[in-house]
């Protein structure tokens, strides 16, 4: 009895017959049992039983029918499922092997696609790394970040609402004690402070925070304990410190015996009581060496001065910041209302204490705002962060261009493979399988791109960090799980996106047409799709290049602005007393000594005392003047107290009258110098010389105006502003510093100047020397960032678009060789053909260009706040970009066009 076999499972797999399904399995098990019962019944009948009895006996002999049916079904479906899975993996493996083989046969094509996708995905991985750190990833170790936020206090001045995150400690106490919406309100202040002493001393990041910081985050110490709210009490808290984990590992080799040891921070000695968990840096964006109670830190940083209130009283000194956690169920609106009420109460208390210096509360419309815990998502987001957000979006456009380009390359390849694919379909390969294969191929290419992208991101990320965004901590892209995940997701998306169009081309293909025709016919529709892709790329290039142009001009404008002083070859020397307290005469003598020593250094041309520093240290004061209507006066003027050498040192011209002289000392009549714009604003065309001004909050009487000087830029946002100068000798300060005009490049002689001056400093005090250009420079960072990255991305998009255009036109020319041959044979000149092909390239380009220009015109106004004195519709930039694109288009089209014009009609007409 030789059974005839059904279709073998292997053959079924080979031919991709639909696999058995569960109801199929049920039926099969049923069939098997039925057959058994039938045969048994027949057997029993043959043995002489009556049919009914035979059936009953057959069932009896079988045993528990239902139970065995269900066990058989479930184990059979398990087996079936396993087989299907293996089939899928087998097929995938087969597809992968086949794809690798096919791609290796075309190394040029493969390399081009991987490079294109690598650049596109790499740009995105880089930008994602930055955006993630700046805007997405909240502080590490923060529990339930949705309920946590930073508190800002807003007031209106001259019609403009200003948000403050820096506030006085007294304000913190008022807000903390008069609100009910928050489970914690944390006070914190991150600062570079000096730790250790002598040769070991160095400046590190220290986190000052109130005792509820730990509960706010919900962290536990790695070892030891955290400081408590009892240890954070005014006036000076407890001198205890919690080390940062990384510092503990490096400086103490992770030794648990560190507890109980001491650490000098500033001029105070702290006892180490614990270590924070790994990766915890509180509200700081860079790693923190140690956390100390804010009261202890403040008592050290803000020592009591005679005649002044202690640091924890009064509202003048705004330094620390607040973060808070909402109580469960409290809405943001309710929290804001609560904060606003507490802020009003606090302002009322302040006004009661100093009625003259606080404007009526209703006029400033105070508001408390509970905003994102991530600083750059709050109302005071830095321009760099906003530019970064834009760049994140722009990098997506770059990826889109890369994908369009790759899709176009794959389409071209698909068209070349039409016959091969048609043969496969005719031979019975299912279209689903074919699509799967084609997608495998494009995802494989994207995976190659992703690997390249990670390498690019690693390199570009660190370049971006050092050159453009130096002020926050940076990890390794390559080791960052979130960046890797993002890259993988981007690659998968890119792979599927680029693979879908060519795959659908094949599936929709006319089978017989493809089999009958040569490689030539039927490509028109596909070329149209490719042309639209190229137009899209052209459009995106235009958008990116216009963005680049706007930032480049902003940067150029900012660079060429006249600061009103010569920041070149200028150093600022700060005197850090570090707890060394001298009485006022000795302190002033030290200042003079340092200044005079500086002048004798060979590297130094001249030196002058100063309090404020443009772009860095600001001091403002209100004034009054007899016979001047107070409405003509501002609430605040920038002010500075300076020594006679000042204007010469910073390179600011004296326009009328005189500067200060050595005879303007504490014994002589008080004098003042003001900037041109201040004089004009107050006295219009009157001669300001000899006028009297009085300072608010002071009883020192008249300062006689003796000179008018040029305006200086205080910051790019404000530009020039009215500025008042007083004589240093008449308004000495402990907080002053020096400007030093050097002979060589400031950065080159900085160290020599520091070495020359340091010996004069008593005890632990030291001089802190900075290049003034470095204060100016960070303000240009957003534009430099925008200019660099937009240009890079724009250039990349343009090159990709040009390459894409080149390949489409070349392809079309090769497809039309026959037709062009006919034209030439019929008497068309080579120049006619040249024009024909060029026109085609330009048509595609111009469509894309119009699209891009349109989008750029619409989107430009959102970019305006990030630009510096340039219109987002700047015609020059638009013009340059349009010309660039046209040149690129002609360049990309010229070669295939020339080839077309040299077609030999004889050869062309004979070939297929």
């Amino acid at each position, binding site marked *: 009895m030789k059974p005839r076999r059904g279709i073998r499972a292997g053959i079924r797999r080979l031919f991709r017959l639909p696999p058995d399904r569960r109801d199929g399995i049920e039926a099969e098990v049923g069939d*098997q049992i039925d057959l*058994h019962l039938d045969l048994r019944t027949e057997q029993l009948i043959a043995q002489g039983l009556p049919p009914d009895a035979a059936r009953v006996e057959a069932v009896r002999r079988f045993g528990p*029918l239902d139970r065995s049916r269900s066990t058989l079904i479930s184990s059979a479906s398990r087996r079936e499922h396993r087989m299907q899975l293996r089939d899928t993996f087998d097929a995938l493996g087969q597809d992968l092997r086949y794809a690798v083989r096919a791609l290796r046969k075309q190394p040029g094509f493969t390399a081009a696609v991987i490079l294109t996708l690598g650049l596109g995905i790499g740009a995105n991985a880089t930008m994602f790394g930055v955006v993630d750190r700046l805007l997405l990833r909240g502080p590490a170790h923060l529990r339930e970040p949705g309920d946590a936020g930073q508190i800002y206090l807003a007031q209106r001045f001259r019609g403009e609402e200003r948000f403050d995150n820096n506030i006085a400690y007294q304000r913190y106490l008022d807000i903390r004690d008069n609100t009910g919406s928050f489970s914690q309100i944390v006070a914190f202040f991150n600062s570079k402070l000096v730790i250790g002493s002598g040769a070991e001393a160095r400046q590190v990041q220290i986190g000052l925070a109130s005792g509820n910081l730990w509960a706010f985050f919900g962290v536990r110490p790695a070892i030891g304990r955290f400081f408590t709210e009892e240890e954070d009490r005014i006036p000076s808290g407890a001198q205890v410190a919690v080390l940062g984990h990384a510092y503990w590992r490096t400086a103490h080799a992770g030794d648990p015996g560190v507890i109980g040891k001491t650490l000098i921070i500033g001029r105070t000695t702290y006892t180490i009581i614990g270590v924070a968990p790994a990766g915890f840096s509180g509200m700081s964006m860079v790693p923190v060496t140690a956390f100390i109670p804010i009261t202890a830190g403040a008592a050290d940083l803000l020592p009591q001065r005679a005649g002044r209130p202690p640091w924890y009283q009064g509202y003048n000194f705004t330094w620390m910041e607040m973060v808070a956690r909402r109580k469960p169920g409290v809405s943001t609106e309710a929290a804001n209302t609560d904060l606003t009420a507490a802020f009003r109460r606090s302002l009322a208390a302040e006004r009661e204490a100093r009625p003259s210096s606080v404007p009526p509360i209703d006029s400033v419309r105070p508001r408390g705002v509970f905003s994102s815990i991530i600083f750059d998502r709050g109302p005071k987001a830095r321009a760099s962060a906003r530019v970064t957000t834009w760049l994140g979006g722009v990098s997506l456009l770059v990826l889109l261009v890369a994908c369009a380009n790759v899709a176009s390359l794959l389409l071209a390849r698909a068209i070349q493979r039409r016959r091969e694919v048609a043969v496969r379909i005719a031979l019975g390969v299912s279209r689903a399988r074919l699509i799967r294969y084609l997608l495998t191929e494009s995802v494989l290419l994207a995976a190659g791109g992703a690997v390249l992208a990670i390498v690019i991101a690693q390199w570009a990320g660190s370049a971006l960090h050092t050159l453009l965004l130096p002020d926050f901590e940076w990890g390794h892209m390559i080791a960052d799980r979130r960046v890797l995940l993002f890259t993988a997701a981007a690659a998968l998306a890119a792979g599927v996106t680029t693979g879908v169009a060519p795959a659908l081309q094949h599936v929709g293909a006319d089978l017989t047409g493809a089999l009958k025709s040569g490689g030539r016919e039927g490509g028109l529709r596909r070329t149209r799709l490719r042309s639209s892709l190229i137009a899209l790329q052209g459009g995106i290039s235009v958008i990116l290049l216009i963005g680049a142009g706007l930032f480049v001009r902003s940067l150029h404008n900012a660079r060429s602005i006249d600061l009103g002083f010569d920041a070149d070859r200028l150093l600022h020397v700060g005197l850090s007393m570090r707890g060394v307290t001298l009485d006022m005469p000795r302190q002033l003598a030290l200042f003079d000594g340092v200044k005079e020593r500086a002048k004798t250094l060979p590297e130094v041309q001249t030196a002058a005392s100063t309090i404020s520093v443009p772009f860095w240290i600001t001091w403002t004061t209100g004034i009054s003047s007899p016979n001047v209507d107070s409405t003509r006066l501002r609430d605040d003027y920038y002010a500075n107290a300076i020594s006679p050498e000042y204007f010469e040192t910073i390179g600011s011209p004296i326009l009328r009258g005189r500067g200060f002289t050595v005879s303007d000392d504490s014994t002589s009549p008080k004098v003042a110098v003001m900037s041109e714009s201040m004089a004009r604003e107050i006295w219009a065309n009157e001669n300001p010389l000899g006028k009297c001004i009085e300072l608010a909050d002071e009883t020192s009487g008249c300062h006689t105006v003796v000179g008018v000087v040029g305006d200086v830029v205080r910051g790019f946002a404000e530009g020039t502003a009215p500025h008042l100068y007083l004589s240093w000798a008449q308004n000495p300060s402990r907080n002053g510093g020096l400007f030093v005009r050097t002979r060589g490049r400031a950065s080159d002689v900085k160290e020599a100047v520091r070495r020359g001056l340091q010996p004069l400093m008593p005890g632990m005090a030291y001089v802190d020397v900075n290049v003034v250009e470095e204060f100016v420079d960070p303000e240009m960072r957003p534009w430099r960032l925008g200019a660099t990255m937009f240009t890079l991305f724009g250039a990349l998009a343009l090159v990709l678009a040009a390459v894409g255009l080149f390949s489409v036109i070349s392809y079309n020319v090769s497809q039309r060789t026959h037709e062009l041959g006919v034209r030439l044979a019929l008497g068309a000149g080579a120049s006619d053909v040249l024009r024909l092909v060029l026109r085609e390239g330009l048509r595609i380009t111009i469509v894309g260009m119009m699209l891009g220009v349109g989008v750029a015109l619409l989107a430009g106004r959102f970019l305006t706040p990030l630009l510096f004195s340039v219109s987002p519709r700047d015609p020059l930039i638009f013009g340059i970009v349009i010309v660039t694109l046209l040149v690129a288009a002609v360049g990309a089209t010229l070669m295939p066009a020339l080839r077309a014009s040299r077609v030999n009609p004889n050869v062309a007409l004979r070939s297929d």
Partner: protein
Amino acid sequence: MTEQLAPMKGTLDTLVLKALSWEPMHGFEITTWLEGQSGGALGIDDSALYQALDRMEERGLIKAEWGLTENNRRARYYRMTTAGRAHLRAEAARWTRYADVMSRILAITSRTT
């Protein structure tokens, strides 16, 4: 008919493999073959047989394919795999030795030391 023996625990698999050692069979063929060869002495519970077949298929001792009986009815044919053949050889040797030992011991009539 004498009283039927139920196969001893663990022996059904071996018996089924033996049945399949010449050619593929479907379930009912296996039952009738075993019943025939044992002269009706073995009483095999049909559901137990199918559980055994399923178990052995899972263990890779046999393979199942659909085929047609000589009367053109669809039936599931079981075929012994190489692993099954090896298993049968090992089990058969074990059983033969075991049965020898058993019968030798049980045949002893007087206690000798």
